């Protein structure tokens, strides 16, 4: 019942060969994911075990200082912690005591590894076990690595969610089939999807992560999961290790992606396709109407994606297929061929993909092709604007509600806005 749709082309078959680059990269590390994860999981706290640089990154990366006291902090390692490992562990225990005394509301504490903690081989898994035993049952202590030597930007969320999978309650062999939506979504979008699955007739739907980490959904051999984000390779593997099966689909961006995503789930749960079509039709209509407003401005315009969040491929597919944009280069930090197979097949033929980065060479290509819009990181945007090249902050695509039918118009608008602004300004 979960037969994959016949692919129009071989995955990536009609794309130009993927340009693999290995040079200087201009991307965030996985710690940055904490900025949205700590808002999503309201009973969790993230303690980065790292350096002053990590703490500085966290407060600079997204201007997050608007939050009174965030549910994250850094245990900054100092000279004396580096002298001997036993010392560092004692220090970590002391910091955790201090933190838990200050924030008795914490139910789950993530110890998050960083570049320096990885390099000195501070064993956070062991520390989590030790501290978990000490503070059970009030606090569960987990660990993952958000280090920049191992993770790029959104891979931090992948590592975090993967660390939650072993904590999910096991469902019995004869449990009724359940569905998991995997990947953190803004609450409003998650609620829209839950309503849609309900209307479609899929009953047991849970999310990873849930808003409360203490209420993780169950998992077993009858669990099917849908990836809501394209950057969750490790999480998917961990879920499959516990018996869950992935429902292959496009990612839910735009009408095409969202339709495919929901249809694939409905099919996996044996729901009548006519029923599915009748439920989805008004949503599709509404989304098409919203997208149409932006199509005029975006059609025929060229766009260049610098690697950032791994959202690049599905977003490029949306912009090409539904808004008529021309893809000059679609860069991504990591190309997950398996999870993106359907996306790559749905892309227009001959698109130049690139994986990894050599930032100066890539900027040379941007200058050469002069795209109408370049999607890039915060550090690169103003310099490109100064050179007369319009940009879109990639991080906005991670922080804004962009999934699903009712956000499709907003998603298109995010790309249209920089172009509209340039048309408006007379200074």
């Amino acid at each position, binding site marked *: 019942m979960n037969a994959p749709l016949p692919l129009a082309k071989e995955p990536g078959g009609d794309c130009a060969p993927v340009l693999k680059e290995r040079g200087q990269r201009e991307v965030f590390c996985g710690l940055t994911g904490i900025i949205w994860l700590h808002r999503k999981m309201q009973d969790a706290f993230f303690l980065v075990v790292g350096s002053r*640089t990590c703490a500085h990154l966290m407060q600079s990366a997204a201007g997050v*200082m608007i939050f009174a006291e965030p549910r994250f902090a850094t245990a*900054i390692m100092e000279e004396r912690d580096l002298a001997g490992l036993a010392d560092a562990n004692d220090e970590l225990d002391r910091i955790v005591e201090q933190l838990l005394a200050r924030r008795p509301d914490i139910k789950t504490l993530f110890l998050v590894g960083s570049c320096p903690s990885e390099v000195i081989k501070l064993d956070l898994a062991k520390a989590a076990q030790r501290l978990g035993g000490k503070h059970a049952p009030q606090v569960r202590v987990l660990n993952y690595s958000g280090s920049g030597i191992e993770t790029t930007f959104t891979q931090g969320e992948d590592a975090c969610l993967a660390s939650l999978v072993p904590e999910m309650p096991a469902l019995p062999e004869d449990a009724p089939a359940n569905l998991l939506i995997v990947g953190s979504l803004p609450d409003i979008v998650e609620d829209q999807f839950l309503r849609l699955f309900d209307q479609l007739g899929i009953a047991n739907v849970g999310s990873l992560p849930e808003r409360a980490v203490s209420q993780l959904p169950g998992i077993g051999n009858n669990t099917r999961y849908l990836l809501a984000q394209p950057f969750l390779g490790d999480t998917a593997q961990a879920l499959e290790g516990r018996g869950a099966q992935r429902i292959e689909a496009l990612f839910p961006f735009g009408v095409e992606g969202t339709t495919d995503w929901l249809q694939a789930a409905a099919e996996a749960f044996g729901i009548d396709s006519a029923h599915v079509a009748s439920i989805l039709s008004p949503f599709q209509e509404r989304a098409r109407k919203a997208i149409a407003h932006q199509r005029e401005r975006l059609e025929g315009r060229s766009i260049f994606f610098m690697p950032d969040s791994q959202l690049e491929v599905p977003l490029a597919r949306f912009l090409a297929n539904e808004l008529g944009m021309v893809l000059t280069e679609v860069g991504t930090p990591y190309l997950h061929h398996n999870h993106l197979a359907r996306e790559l097949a749905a892309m227009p033929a001959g698109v130049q993909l690139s994986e990894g980065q050599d930032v100066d060479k890539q900027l040379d290509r941007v200058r050469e092709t002069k795209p109408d819009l370049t999607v890039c990181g915060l550090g690169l945007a103003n310099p490109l604007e100064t050179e007369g090249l319009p940009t879109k902050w990639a991080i906005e695509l991670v922080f804004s509600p962009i999934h699903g039918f009712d956000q499709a118009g907003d998603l298109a608008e995010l790309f249209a806005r920089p172009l509209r602004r340039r048309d408006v300004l007379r200074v």
Partner: protein
Amino acid sequence: MQLAVWTYEGPPHVGAMRVATAMEGVHYLLHSPQGDTYADLLFTMIERRGKRPPVTYTTFQARDLGKDTSQLFQDAATDIVERFQPDAMLVGASCTAELIQDDPAGLTEKMGLPVPVIPLELPSYQRKEHWGAAETFYQIVRTLADKNRTTAPIDSRRPLANILGPTALGFRHRDDVIEIEKLLGQLGVDVNVIAPLGATAADIARLGEADFNIVLYPETGDLAADYLKRQFGQPAVRTVPIGVGATQDFVREVAELAGVDPEPLLADGLSHMPWWSRSIDSNYLTGKRVFIFGDGTHAVAAARVASEELGFKIVGLGCYNREYAREVRKAAKQYDVEPLITDDHLAVEKAITEAQPELVLGTQMERHIAKRLGIGCAVVSAPVHVQDFPARYSPHMGFEGANVLFDEWVHPLVMGLEEHLLTMFRDDFEFNDHSGPSHLGPGHNAPAENAAQPANDTEAVWSEDAEKELKKIPFFVRGKARRNTETFAAERGVATIELETLYEAKAHYAR
């Protein structure tokens, strides 16, 4: 280990970036993992710079660690020379690279690169951003200043000064420098070199030609000025010209070193600030309680202005950089407050809550604290935010800077007559202290009743009358009145606080 939610200073390599980015033709090769590239956005976003910082990050990954990260470093050095053709190259390691001990200095030395290479040893686990900037600037000066270029005979020219310390991402550095250069021109002093901001390697080479140095930002310029004194015998002006009085002192100090007469310039009365402060409508500023926190230099300078030039009462003074704690301690003694030397913003928040100021002069951190407590705030020091790079010209130094200080510090306050009206007509349905200062618009509401209030842990109970009367006291002093009354009651064993107790306590604590 230290538990930190927010930090006042970044790591020392960010200080080095502030120097490299400020200069022209200097490139910084930083051995670091990819995440450290976030630092670019400090300059391109917060400061809105239109160019990428001249920094190449080696961005080594876990898989490189077992192999040859030093090769990555050397390849990057070769690429930099080829692509950017810098006049000088800084090389160093960030916190992670420091641990893998690749020795950037030794690696580049072996390569024999065709440009001057300046190795930076910035211990990430001991030092912080300001120190990193000062050390980097010092190393650049030490390496590039030409020891054969010294002063020309004075009779054939105007006196020459170097301006030291301004960097990229500096708090109001862009405008301070313009203001001070103008002031020196009016005094008849020419500027030899401004550095690091806008300086090239060639500019650094001719630092020795100046008669003296002006250290505008001691946190970043002191080390270099000390070196120049040793090497070239150049004296340094270290008075920081923030406020009218300090600017006058500064002018006199410069004039003495330059051998010019400062009095004609000083007689001109170049700032509106003294009259703005003396005019009758500023009477209400008298004794306003102000809490000051920032880098040592800006905090001490702000305290002088607040006390001598605006007539505020200082109820707290501190800094986050221990290197300048001595100056802050000295000033705190003068203003009779306990100095607060800490880089823990939670300790600062606690101190502000307890001091119950009417105005906070601080950094971005204090701006957030003050916002939460519903207290007016003006930013006087780094760390900076995008709002601290205004489009308009707004120096904090010099005579124009003093005008800017008056405006920026006075505007967040509840204005004179408004303050009286708030006290007189407390029950007006739309004009009460919960609606906040009228000129600041919505979003500046007074905090919830108990936000800035000490916990009531005394035995005394408030009578209904006394409690009602307490609510008639303006919110910004209400907490203090409550605390004083409760202490007064406790000391006298009063079980119930009546109206009379409130007023007896008021008289007792009146000064």
